[in-house]
């Protein structure tokens, strides 16, 4: 291996020197030829490739479809563009050549990246959806997955929080597991990465394939059950040389919709006054005259801002002779709409291929990244962590966040809400930073010893390193615990570090053979992968003051370290066969051995088969003119999910220290039961699909039905504590998932004004077939999963308003502390009393949507282009847990405006939603989860609107194409959900559907420019 690398390097040097010495050499008499390339509608085609046949000399057309290159008078020009039939034009002495290209009769000749290779779209027999870089370019988003929203049938992509650089949840085909993860496997240039996909610069990406059914994923075996996302990065196209620059910058702001509708200062003072009166207490002076206060502090505004977002990337692609390289350098910076939050990413990718000779090709890719985050504690309930968004809105609007003299108060004490810090100050003084560096790199060699037999060996490395620092000064606090600057004992800090690496060594042998009209494609391979992570977390107290914020200033530092690693050995094999490209068969298998599983269940096989039939090629179809293409597909396979702890199979003995007297002694205790039979989840998936195109491919329709059953669920099953343990990791239970996916792609208008619509919708359903001990239901915070029912349904008391009056009270079932004017619940089991347990809890909704859909409309008119992307979900519900606090009747917090319409007396019962504020009668309304907090989360969001304009440039040597565009991300959210974000519910497994308040998702306006040099 070593000699080869050096050999390559020498070749590389020779090549570079050669290019420098002879690069400008003019060997033959050349003439300058120019012209324009147009499509079938006579529209100029930017980016078409023109090469001189038999050489590597070539250019691309500019934004106006024009080109200019030198060639000899007897040369032949090859003109090509993806999706169009290539043409060869003899120059025949001409200096001006215009070419019109025609759409390929089937765009199905597109090559699609699949597991361990690529295939023409026509020959695909599984459920695979692709998207290429062009469709992603203009969306101002840090993360790849964010850009995919609304584009993929059957893939639910939710932005669960607006924290810059975080919060995307991706579920393929409604995938859920009880305790194993549900995220898809991300494969970057053939490498199943272990690091975070969010750290990859989306501008490096050429295309993405989402593999959905078992036949397309089974080559990833025990990691395939959640679906596979294959990311292919940019490589230079043969014979071209381009530099392109893209940049956008914009402003993010919070739309009016989704803001909590809290009381203003005079409303809050009025509320406080009424609560005091209702409880027979003296009204404090402060609240005697509520009207004097006006609006007061809007705490949501106080901790948020307009923020900038910017992205720059420069890419250089060159492919000459044997050498091809692609470089993408990027810088992305997003300031968060919450103060003191930001995310920046510096990235570089160099993909280099070298063709040693006709038989040997080698490649090296390296992509270092560096990210830097400042992340205040924004999400969650105020009492778990001092989470700023919720804490801030619960604070009295009478409290100033800035004094009249410009000074900043430390606390909001004394204004009628619970003692708390000034959140405007808090968000700035608490430091929470993390910095990550990563490297994705690989090197490979491809050898073709005999024709059509290719041996490929590659080494891949994923390296990640992160440090995080946290500092909590004495000027910070939490609700009920206001800052006290003088009290240094409040100060604490932490420092964390992590080093993670994974390497993969992969060897494959592939063989292609065509015998007459029979095509064979064989693949066999062997891979081994190791992942290792070491983390440390050190927390410190005993700082003398806030001046030095690093751990060295602390008196007491405690630390813990962890090491996690796993290994995987695998064999893969696949046979693709087709006859006349009309009858297509494929069979694949992976055999995985994993260190994660018990010695008795270490190896597993994951086979699949699939078949396709291009019906439209049959002679009997020739009479059906409108149908231009029809393919039927079917597949079946077995795949696995191994997302379980690395050492779950072992009963571990862990440190359990305990003091005796004044000495802390080392202790140990057993932390679980061992399970030598722990294995992966097995998913058996069946898929039927049809692809049908009408009217010369102007209307394309795709449909898939899938059904999968997952058994041997990896499941940390709750067990009775009388065993000494709370849970036990095992394979138990069985779930079924099924659904329909429809895609429609229509060229509504062609010609000067073109209009395309892409629409997808999917309907996912699921059901638990078997669960833990005696099929005992699984409970989450507010969810239940029962045999025979859908997974993770919302499960609470059933809310029935308030006991309006004595008559209502007398004839209604009650809980022990019920009174007239307190919250009323349904007596579900009919035993005459209301109890806050399974007797009166009921299913009150499902957090999984019945349908998810996306729609993209793209228009082009002359030099303008416009695209509108929307996505939505229907039929799901969210329990808005934060309302427990924003409707607190005690007068401890600021509340929603609606609370003013609470029950006051039988004569003045309000709107029947909120009970009375009499002390000691309020806690059940708040503390007992009920359907009061459950809302429909149907939504439709215009994710993006982009308007672009190709600037007409005079012929010049420097800029070949220039496009400017304006874009709005998260343009409009249509929903009746009263919380901040209807996408919040996508958190994993069986416990989704709770909104604990999250970082708001902003609307982003950007201006961007792309130009080619």
């Amino acid at each position, binding site marked *: 291996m070593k000699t080869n690398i050096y050999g390559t390097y020498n070749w590389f040097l020779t090549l570079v020197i050669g290019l420098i010495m002879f690069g400008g050499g003019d060997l033959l008499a050349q003439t300058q030829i120019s012209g324009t390339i147009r499509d079938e509608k006579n529209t100029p085609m930017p980016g078409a490739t023109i090469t001189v046949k038999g050489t590597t000399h070539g250019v691309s057309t500019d934004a106006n479809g024009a080109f200019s290159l030198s060639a000899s008078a007897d040369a032949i020009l090859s003109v090509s563009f993806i999706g169009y039939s290539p043409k060869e034009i003899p120059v025949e002495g001409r200096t001006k050549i215009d070419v019109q290209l025609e759409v390929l009769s089937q765009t199905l000749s597109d090559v699609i990246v699949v597991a361990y290779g690529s295939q023409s779209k026509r020959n695909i027999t599984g459920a695979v959806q692709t998207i290429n870089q062009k469709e992603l370019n203009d969306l101002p988003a840090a993360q790849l997955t964010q850009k995919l929203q609304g584009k993929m049938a059957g893939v639910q992509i939710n932005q669960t929080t607006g924290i810059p650089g975080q919060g995307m949840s991706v579920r393929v085909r409604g995938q859920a597991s009880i305790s194993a993860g549900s995220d898809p496997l991300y494969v970057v240039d053939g490498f199943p990465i272990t690091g975070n996909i969010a750290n990859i610069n989306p501008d490096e990406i050429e295309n993405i394939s989402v593999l959905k059914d078992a036949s397309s994923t089974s080559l990833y075996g025990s990691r395939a059950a959640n679906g596979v996302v294959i990311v292919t990065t940019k490589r230079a196209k043969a014979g071209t040389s381009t530099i392109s620059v893209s940049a956008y910058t914009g402003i993010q702001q919070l739309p009016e919709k989704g803001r909590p509708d809290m009381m203003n200062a005079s409303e809050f003072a009025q509320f406080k006054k009424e609560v005091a009166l209702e409880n027979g207490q003296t009204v404090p002076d402060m609240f005697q005259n509520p009207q004097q206060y006006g609006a007061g502090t809007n705490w949501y505004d106080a901790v948020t801002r307009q923020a900038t977002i910017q992205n720059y990337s420069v890419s250089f692609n060159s492919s000459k002779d044997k050498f091809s390289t692609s470089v993408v350098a990027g810088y992305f910076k997003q300031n968060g709409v919450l103060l003191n939050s930001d995310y920046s990413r510096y990235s570089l990718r160099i993909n280099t291929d070298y063709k040693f000779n006709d038989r040997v090709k080698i490649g090296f890719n390296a992509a270092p990244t560096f990210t830097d985050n400042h992340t205040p504690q924004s999400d969650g309930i105020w009492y778990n962590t001092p989470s700023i968004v919720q804490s801030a809105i619960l604070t009295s609007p009478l409290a100033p966040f800035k004094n009249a003299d410009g000074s900043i108060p430390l606390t909001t004490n004394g204004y009628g809400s619970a003692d708390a810090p000034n959140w405007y100050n808090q968000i700035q003084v608490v430091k929470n930073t993390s910095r990550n560096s990563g490297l994705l790199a690989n090197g490979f060699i491809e050898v073709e010893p005999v024709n059509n037999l290719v041996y490929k060996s590659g080494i891949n490395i994923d390296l990640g390193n992160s440090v995080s620092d946290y500092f909590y000064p004495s000027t910070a606090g939490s609700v009920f615990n206001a800052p006290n600057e003088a009290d240094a004992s409040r100060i604490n800090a932490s420092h964390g570090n992590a080093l993670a690496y994974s390497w993969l060594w992969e060897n494959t042998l592939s063989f292609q053979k065509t015998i007459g009209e029979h095509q064979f494609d064989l693949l066999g391979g062997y891979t081994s992968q190791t992942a290792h992570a070491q983390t440390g977390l050190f927390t410190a107290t005993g700082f003398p003051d806030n001046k030095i914020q690093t751990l060295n200033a602390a008196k007491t530092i405690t630390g813990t370290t962890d090491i996690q690693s796993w290994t995987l050995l695998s064999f893969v094999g696949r046979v693709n066969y087709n006859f006349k490209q009309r009858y297509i068969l494929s069979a694949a298998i992976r055999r995985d051995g994993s260190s994660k599983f018990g010695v008795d269940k270490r190896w597993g096989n994951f086979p699949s088969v699939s078949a396709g039939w291009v019906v439209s090629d049959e002679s009997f179809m020739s009479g059906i003119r409108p149908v231009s293409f029809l393919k039927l597909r079917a597949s079946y396979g077995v795949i696995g999910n191994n997302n379980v702890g690395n050492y779950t199979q072992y009963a571990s003995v862990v440190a359990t220290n305990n003091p005796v007297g004044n000495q802390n002694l080392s202790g*140990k205790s057993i932390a679980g039961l061992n399970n030598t039979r722990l294995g992966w989840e097995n998913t058996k998936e069946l898929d039927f699909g049809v692809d049908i195109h009408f009217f010369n491919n102007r209307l394309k329709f795709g449909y898939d039905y899938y059904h999968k059953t997952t058994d041997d669920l990896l499941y940390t099953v709750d067990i009775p504590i*009388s065993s000494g343990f709370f849970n036990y990791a095992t394979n138990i239970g069985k779930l079924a998932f099924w659904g329909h996916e429809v895609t429609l792609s229509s060229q509504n208008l062609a010609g000067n004004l073109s209009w395309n619509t892409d629409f997808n919708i999917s309907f996912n359903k699921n059901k638990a077939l078997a669960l833990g001990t005696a099929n005992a239901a699984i409970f989450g915070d507010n969810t239940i999963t029962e045999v025979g029912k859908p997974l993770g349904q919302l499960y609470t008391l059933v809310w029935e308003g308030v006991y309006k009056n004595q008559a209502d009270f007398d004839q209604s079932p009650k809980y022990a502390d019920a009174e007239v004017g307190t919250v009323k619940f349904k007596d579900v089991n009919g035993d005459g009393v209301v109890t806050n347990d399974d007797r009166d809890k009921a299913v009150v909704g499902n957090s999984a949507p019945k349908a998810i859909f996306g729609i993209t409309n793209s228009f082009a008119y002359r030099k303008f282009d416009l695209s509108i992307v929307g996505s939505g979900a229907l039929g799901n519900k969210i329990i808005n847990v934060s309302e427990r606090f924003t409707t607190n009747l005690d007068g401890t917090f600021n509340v929603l405006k609606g609370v003013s319409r609470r029950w006051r007396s039988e004569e003045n019962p309000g709107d029947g939603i909120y009970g009375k504020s009499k002390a000691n009668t309020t806690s059940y309304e708040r503390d007992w989860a009920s359907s009061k907090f459950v809302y429909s989360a149907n939504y439709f969001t215009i994710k993006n609107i982009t308007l672009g304009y190709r600037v007409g440039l005079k012929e010049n040597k420097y800029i070949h194409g220039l496009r400017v565009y304006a874009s709005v991300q998260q343009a409009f959210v249509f929903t009746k959900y009263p919380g901040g974000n209807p996408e919040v519910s996508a958190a994993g497994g069986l416990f989704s559907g709770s909104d604990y308040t999250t970082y708001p998702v902003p609307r982003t306006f950007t201006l961007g420019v792309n130009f080619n040099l």
Partner: protein
Amino acid sequence: MKLKALILFAILSSCKNDFLDKAPETVVPAAEFYKTESDFQQAIVGLYNPLRALYGTGLADVGAWAMGEMRSDNTTFSFNAANRGYADREYVDLFTDDANSGTTSNKYNSNYIIIGRANQVLKTIDAATFDEKQKNNFKGQALFLRAFCYFDLVQYFGDVPLALEPATSFEQTALPRTPREDVYKQIIADATLAASLLPAASAQTKGYVANGAAYALLGNVHLVLKQWENAESALTKITGYSLLPDYASVFDPNNKNNAESLFEVQYLDEPTAAAASNFGYNFLPILADPGVISGFPSGNSNSYAGWNTPTPDLINSYEAADKRKAASIGFYTGEGYVNRPYAKKFVHGAKIAPNTNDNWPVYRYAEVLLMLAEAQNEQAKPSALTSLNAVHAHPRTGLSPITTTAQTELREQILKERQIELAFENKRWPDLVRTGKAVAVMTAQGNKIKANPQAYYYPAGISPVAASYNVSETKLLFPIPQREIRLNPLLKQNPGY
């Protein structure tokens, strides 16, 4: 190249099983533990660890004091009008608690975690080879703690699942409730064996239980079962302990594991140990600045506090001359409070907020003497008076000896002496239950509170809900936690819940 690859392939294939063995590096697999004396030494330390959760740890915690004291007439809580977030802590006091109570599940869970660890030790220790004396010591401690935890469970929950072996499979983890008679049999067997295996206090490292603790437990169990003779026989075997001359010093964190202590839960305020108690902060009235109480640093409002507040009834049951009153109950005036009482016995300040260094006494020699007095009195033995006066008239109380010899009267005297001497030590509620007084005493207590809520620390205008203090026989047991009922179809909930 290809040849090299194939060779590497062959090598990798042949060693693939090693390649796939990844044992955890930061923990020990159980199969490699429970072998040596050091292993068991550490396992024993680990066995004591959940006692801290059982007796209380953390802010606004749910320690044993809630069910042992707040449920009784000894203590209640200071109604926290500004923060109703801890309302579920109040339900145990108000008799409105249900199977969702965190207080109840803390007791249930902590006991079973200790039992599980004890079972693991007992299952493996015989096969290990090391010093027999040391082995007996460890085994005795594991047996003691298992018996102690089952005793706690059976008193508060009645019939409970009786696990005596570690589960080896998922199927074995669900057990039905064992009738309490059988649970008691096992407790007596374990405690008896523990007493015979454990060394005397003089030979045991301070802080670990010695045979005295096992005899005290045995005596206590027999008292509950009204087996007076057995109780006396066990209790008289306890030697090597004595009452401290000063009552307050018994609870002083500077005086942990003193001559009077048979068994106490160990806490440590050393920040790196993460094993501090927080009793002081929880039991004080809610204060913007706890620094107003001597020994506490300034700042760090204990807005979650006000628990286990002594009732006026307890305060009034002290005889005027009783020096124990001042050592047990403190009063604070300020921040809107006038003479608000708190359980001073467990309030000794803190070096760093909110970590306190107080241990929790479980068995101390004064209780042994009182249990002995009770056992003797029930057998109509005159020695009862001597045992009672050893506590009541000890110079540290400042009281004169009790002289009555009438059995019934003495019975009341002993119970009252327990209330005073052992105030806040989680003895009162079990005493009320085992003496059959709980329903009457607590119904009366509830009426008193409702008649005058402000005397019981309710703010003006606020009173306990109508449904509170609805005390009946079913309330003598607590509900089995909801989680267990859901997970284990073999369990049936206690009646009334």
